[in-house]
C-alpha cells in the first residue's frame, strides 16, 4: 500500500517537474532572455589590500585617523554613522582630550519630553554620531555597517569611490561599448554613471574629486586613491570595531584547541590500545 502511494507520489512530482523543465527549456530556446545592461557592464570590486585583512589583520591607526578625517570633511555632509559613539574613537589612537574635543564639535539633539523642545547640546564622548539632515536626491545610507552590508566590503567602497566614469565611450573588458549596445541605458539626469554600482547609475555625485581635497595632518599625500583607501579602511573599522580583538583572541583559542585535541587523540588511542580495528 505504502509502495503504491510512493510510486504515485514519485510519478506526480516527477511529471510536474518534467512539465516545468520542458516548458522552461522551450521558452529559454524560443525567447531567450536578453542580456541586461547590468549583466554586461556591472564590474566586480577592484582588489583592495588593507592591514585588517585576514586572520592576522590589525588596524593601521594612522590610516583610520586619515579615513576618519575624510569621513568628517566629505562624507559626513550626507551620511550618518549612528552606531558609532565618540568614545569609540579612542580605538583610533586619540587620547581622552582629543576624543572630547572631537565630540564637542558635534551638535547633539536632546528632546525634552516635558516641553516638546529639541535643544542642541555640544557632544560628549558618550554620545553617538548624530543623525544627518539630508534634503537632496536619493537616500544616503548610514555608513556604520556599510563595509559588512555590501558584497566585497571595503573593496566595494574603494571601487565605488574611484569608479566614476564618463558613460560616453565607456567600454567593458570585452571591448563592448555601453551606449552602442544599450542606447536606452543612458544615465538619466541627476544620476551618475558608476560601473561598480549595482544598477550602474548612482544618485551620489563623485565625492572625492581632486587630489588634496583634504589636508592630512600626518603629511600623507591626499590623492583621490589614497583618500578612497583610507575612508574604506575607516569604514571597515566602524563596521567591525572588534576585529583586532577577535583575531587576537582567536589564535590562542585555536592553539589551545590543537593542543587539547592532540591530548584527546592520545587518550583515545590509549583507551583503545588492544582493541583491533581502531
Amino acid at each position, binding site marked *: 500500500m*505504502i*509502495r503504491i502511494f*510512493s*510510486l504515485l*507520489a*514519485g*510519478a506526480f*512530482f*516527477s*511529471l*510536474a*517537474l*518534467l*512539465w*516545468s*523543465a520542458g*516548458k*522552461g*527549456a522551450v521558452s*529559454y530556446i524560443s525567447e531567450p*532572455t536578453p542580456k541586461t545592461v547590468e549583466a554586461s557592464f556591472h564590474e566586480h570590486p577592484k582588489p583592495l589590500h588593507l592591514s585588517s585583512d*585576514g*586572520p592576522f589583520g590589525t588596524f593601521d591607526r594612522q590610516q583610520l585617523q586619515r579615513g576618519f578625517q575624510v569621513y568628517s570633511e566629505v562624507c559626513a555632509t550626507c551620511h550618518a554613522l549612528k*552606531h558609532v559613539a565618540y568614545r*569609540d574613537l579612542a580605538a583610533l589612537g586619540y587620547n581622552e582630550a582629543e576624543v572630547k574635543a572631537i565630540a564637542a564639535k558635534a551638535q547633539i539633539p536632546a528632546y525634552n519630553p516635558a516641553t516638546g523642545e529639541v535643544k542642541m547640546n555640544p557632544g560628549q564622548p558618550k554620545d553617538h554620531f548624530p543623525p544627518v539632515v539630508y534634503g537632496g536626491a536619493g537616500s544616503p*545610507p548610514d555608513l*556604520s*555597517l556599510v563595509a*559588512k*552590508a*555590501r*558584497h566585497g*566590503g571595503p573593496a566595494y567602497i574603494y571601487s565605488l569611490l574611484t569608479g566614476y566614469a564618463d558613460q560616453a565611450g565607456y567600454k567593458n573588458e570585452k571591448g563592448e561599448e555601453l551606449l552602442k549596445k544599450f542606447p536606452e541605458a543612458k544615465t538619466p539626469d541627476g544620476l551618475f554613471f558608476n560601473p561598480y554600482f*549595482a544598477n550602474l547609475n548612482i544618485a551620489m555625485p563623485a565625492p572625492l574629486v581632486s587630489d588634496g581635497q583634504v589636508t592630512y595632518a600626518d603629511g600623507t599625500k591626499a590623492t583621490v586613491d589614497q583618500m578612497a583607501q583610507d575612508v574604506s579602511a575607516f569604514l571597515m573599522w566602524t*563596521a567591525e*570595531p*572588534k576585529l583586532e*580583538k*577577535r*583575531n587576537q*583572541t*582567536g*589564535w590562542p*583559542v*585555536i592553539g589551545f*584547541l*590543537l593542543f*587539547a*585535541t592532540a591530548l*584527546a*587523540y592520545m*587518550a*583515545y588511542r590509549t*583507551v*583503545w590500545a588492544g*582493541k*583491533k*580495528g581502531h
Partner: protein
Amino acid sequence: MSFPWANEYKPSHPAMVWLDEKLPLPRFVFNAVGAGYPVPRNLNYMYNFGVLAGVCLMIQIITGVVLAMHYAANTGVAFDSTEHIMRDVNWGWLLRYAHANGASAFFVVVYFHIFRGFFYGSYKAPREMIWLIGVLIFLLMMATAFMGYVLPWGQMSYWGAKVITGLFGAIPLVGEPIQTWLLGGFAPDQAALNRFFSLHFLLPFVILGVVILHIWALHIPGSTNPTGVEVKQESDTVPFHPYYTAKDGFGLGVFLIFYCAMVFFAPNALGHPDNYIPANPMQTPAHIVPEWYFWPFYAILRAFTQDFLFIPAKLLGVLAMFSSILVWFLLPWLDNSPVRSGHFRPTFKKFFWLLVVDVAVLGYCGGSPAEEPYVIISQIAALYYFAHFFIVLPIVSMIEKPLPLPFSITESVLGKDDAATVAPAE
C-alpha cells in the same frame, strides 16, 4: 533493553549509595552514556556526529540565553540592540558570532548525522522510532533557525519572514487567513517579531526534550553499526565509557577547531551582507536567499515554475518542499531491504552517492539567482530527489542482490574465523 553483559552501576562511596536509593540519577547517566551502555565496537567516525549535535544544541542554548539578556524584540530597536551586543556588551561580538555560526555548525553536523543514517540504514527496524523522532527534531530545528534569523530585523530577516510565511498563503482557501494569523498582521511587524522571539526561545527546549526521547528510543535496540549486523555477543561491544567518551572527546576537539576558526576568522562568511541593512518594508533586496542550510529545499520550492493538472505552480512548490522532508518519515517502509548497511548493498550504494551529489547540486542552485541555467538544473536535481525516495529505493530494495554479510561484528573487526559467513537473505 540492555544487553545481559552490560556493566552494572555499583556505587562504592556511602554518599553515592545513599543518592542511588533516593534519586538514581548517577545510575541513569551510567546506563545512558557511561560504562553501563554496551555499544558496537566497530563504530567509525561517522558515528561521532550524534554527540556533536548534542554539543551544538548546548552551545546554541547557552549563547542564546545569554544573548537574550541584551536583545530587545521590538521592531524599532531590534537591529540597534543587535549592534549594541556587537559593540558595547562585554564579549558580545563573540557570543553573537558563536550563536550565528553555531546554527550553521549545528546543521553541518546534523546533515552528516542524517546521511550517516541514510547510508547505514539506521532507519530500519527495529529503529524506526529513533528515525521518526530524528526527522521531527530536524523539522523543529528548521523552524527554530528560521525564527532566529528574523530576530536581528535586517533586510534578509524581514524578507525571509515575509517569503516563508507566504508559503502558507499557497494553501487553497485558508492560506491567506493562515498567513495573516501567523504574522498577526498583513506583513511582518511588531506582533510577528515578538512571537518569533518567544518561540525561538521556547523551541530549543522542546528540541532538548525530543532529543532525550531520541536517545531513550536509541537505548531500546542499542546503536547500529557500519556492518548493519546486530550485536550477538559480548565481544561485539565495548562500554560507551571510556571507549566512546574518549573517541567523542577527540571528535569534539576536531569539531571545535573548525567551528572556532569560523567564529574568529570568518564570522560573516556564511551570512548575507544584506542582513546588515536594517529591515525596510518598502524595498526588497535584489537577491533573496535563505541561509545556506535551507538552500536544497529552497531550490525544490523554486523548481516548480508551471501549473500542472490545474494545481498552481506556487502550491506545487510548497507541497514539494514540505514533501521533500516529510518523505523521510516514510523511509523505514519505502526501503525494505533486509540488509541495513550500504557497504553490502552495491546498487543502493551507487544511488546513495548520487543522492549526495544531487543534494549538493540542489544546494548550489538554491543559493543562486532564479535564472537559467540554475532553474533547469534544479528541476532535474529535484526530479532525482523525489525519484530516489519514492521510486528508486522501493525498487532497488526489492531487486538488489546484497553482498554476503559478516557473521558478527567481532568477525568483521578481527577477521573471519571458521564460524562461516551467513547468507544475507532472511
